[in-house]
């Protein structure tokens, strides 16, 4: 196990008692405001000394209150992107970025200064002081600072919260590269389901200081119970997929999923690459027969396995398509009109472009999730 965390701590009116383990990859901490996410992350970083707890990263015990072990923060080699920036006001942006590099052994270093600056679009700010930066600029510098310390574990507390979509779209693939290319374990706090769906290897859902659920994102995202927490329109299935071929003419990529084939907007990876594809329940249309004359390109045969509670105006229909589960959200009326019931054969219709760039992530890990889930 890559990260192993268990802490118990009490503030005035709030108590946290949470434990989780996560393999390599990115572990997303998800939960409502005040659920204890930052508290947990602080304990991992060593900034909070919990009353009781154990933290280990890649086998090295960083905290064990019972055995009296508490590695000080500066020896943990944990990069932390704080929720509130915490840039050093007296240092220039360049000095802020370089701060951690100073203390990093050469052999541990990764990522070049120039590349990071380029990626984050902060090249023009290098000589400025943090005081006059805009909110998003501060956040980007904070990300760069943590990355350039070349940590062996990265903690990110809502790192993209105040960035614009375009900037997010630039940074997300970079985080993927860190996760997969470098194998850097990441603990990632976010309220954004698209981000988590795209990035997470493991999702830990916190509520009121307790771990309510944890597991591979595919399982959690497809769990209608959790829809209220995530915002209903974000729930859905995560499918493991493999690139079959590219169609350069239409700029589409054909994927193989267990239930058939999908055409999605071109993915920049060679055939054979394993991907994860998020299919939102809201995007899935169910049809009695494969439709014709429709702009929606994808149609997967599927079987209804379960129908969500009928007292809701909107119903989540669980399908199985190949080996994968999928979800479709439809109105109660459509359910009636199509006379859906468990066992019924249907076709799941999906627009290609419903699968956006941010719904497709590279993934070596999802396969594991697959096995755990079944």
């Amino acid at each position, binding site marked *: 196990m890559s990260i192993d965390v268990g802490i118990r701590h009490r503030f005035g009116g709030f108590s946290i008692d949470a434990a989780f383990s996560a393999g390599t990859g990115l572990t997303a901490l998800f939960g409502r405001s005040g659920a204890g996410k930052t508290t947990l992350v602080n304990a991992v*970083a*060593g*900034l909070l000394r919990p009353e009781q707890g154990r933290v280990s990263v890649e086998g090295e015990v960083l905290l064990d209150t019972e055995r009296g072990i508490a590695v*000080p*923060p*500066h*020896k*943990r*080699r*944990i*990069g*932390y992107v*704080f929720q509130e920036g*915490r*840039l*050093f*006001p*007296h240092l220039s942006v360049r000095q802020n970025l370089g*701060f*951690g590099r*100073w*203390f*990093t052994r050469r052999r541990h270093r990764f990522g070049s200064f120039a590349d990071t600056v380029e990626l984050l679009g902060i090249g023009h700010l290098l000589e400025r*002081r*943090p*005081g*006059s930066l805009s909110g998003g600029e501060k956040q980007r510098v904070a990300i760069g*600072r*943590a990355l350039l*310390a070349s940590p062996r574990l990265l903690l990110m507390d809502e790192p993209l919260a105040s960035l614009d979509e375009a900037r997010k779209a630039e940074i997300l693939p970079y985080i993927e590269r860190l996760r997969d290319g470098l194998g850097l374990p990441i603990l990632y706090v976010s309220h954004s389901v698209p981000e988590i769906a795209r990035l997470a290897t493991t999702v830990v859902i916190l509520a009121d200081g307790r771990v309510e659920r944890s597991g591979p994102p595919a399982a959690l995202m497809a769990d209608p119970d959790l829809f209220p927490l995530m915002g209903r329109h974000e729930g859905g299935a995560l499918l493991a997929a493999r690139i079959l071929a590219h169609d350069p003419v239409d700029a589409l990529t054909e994927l193989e999923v267990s239930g058939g084939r999908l055409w999605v907007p071109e993915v920049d990876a060679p055939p054979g690459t394993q991907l994860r594809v998020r299919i939102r329940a809201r995007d899935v249309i169910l049809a009695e027969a494969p439709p014709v004359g429709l702009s929606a390109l994808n149609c997967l045969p599927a079987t209804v396995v379960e129908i969500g509670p009928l007292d809701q105006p909107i119903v989540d229909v669980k399908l199985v398509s190949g080996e994968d589960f999928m979800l479709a959200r439809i109105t109660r009326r459509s359910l009636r009109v199509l006379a859906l019931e468990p066992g019924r054969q249907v076709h799941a219709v999906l627009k290609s472009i419903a699968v956006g760039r941010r719904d497709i992530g590279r993934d070596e890990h999802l396969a594991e999730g697959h096995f755990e889930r079944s």
Partner: protein
Amino acid sequence: MLQLTPEEWTAVALSIRVAGWATLLSLPLGIATALLLARGRFWGRGLLNGLVHLPLILPPVVTGYMLLLLFGRRGPIGSLLEETFGIVLAFRWTGAVLASAIMAFPLMVRAIRLAVEAVDPKLEQAAGTLGANRLWTFATITLPLILPGVIAGAILAFAKAMGEFGATITFVSNIPGETQTIPSAIYALIQVPGGEAGALRLTAVSIAVAMAALLASEAVGRLVARRIADR
């Protein structure tokens, strides 16, 4: 009007030297003490705090007398210093440095301590997560952030040292060229009828020197503060 006698010039030079060294030498200790008082949680914190303030509370003569008792050639510390390091303070300008430093110490410590208390520990924590140990964190984060306080403390100490009289003359007496600082010279002048003019001249010089130091420190302080201001 500023026609000083050579002896008076000596006193001026000596005063600057004494005040300068007193400030410089007590600075590290002042910072350390301020840190201890602001951050430390140890038994005897209250005592240390009281001790630091003592020279402020006591009439300077008393402080001077105590210094004499402790650091005189016959005093326990004084004799030890002389035997082991060959350092003599009594009747030397070094003693004047000690006396001024001690008199100025509470002012310096307070200023620095206020600055330390204003530093956000969250920034120090952030430095920790980036791999800086306590010492590095202090050098790269805390110290730069408290710099305005350090400068304020230093200038207070310098000004105080320039004006210190009671403890200095009691401890190291008044030896022209060795321990006769401006205040001693002024004191001597106003003890005799008609000495006012001389006293006035020396006072003017003293003010000029201290003001120059003050202005310089203000300028530096502003510069530093501007760099720090996270605004």
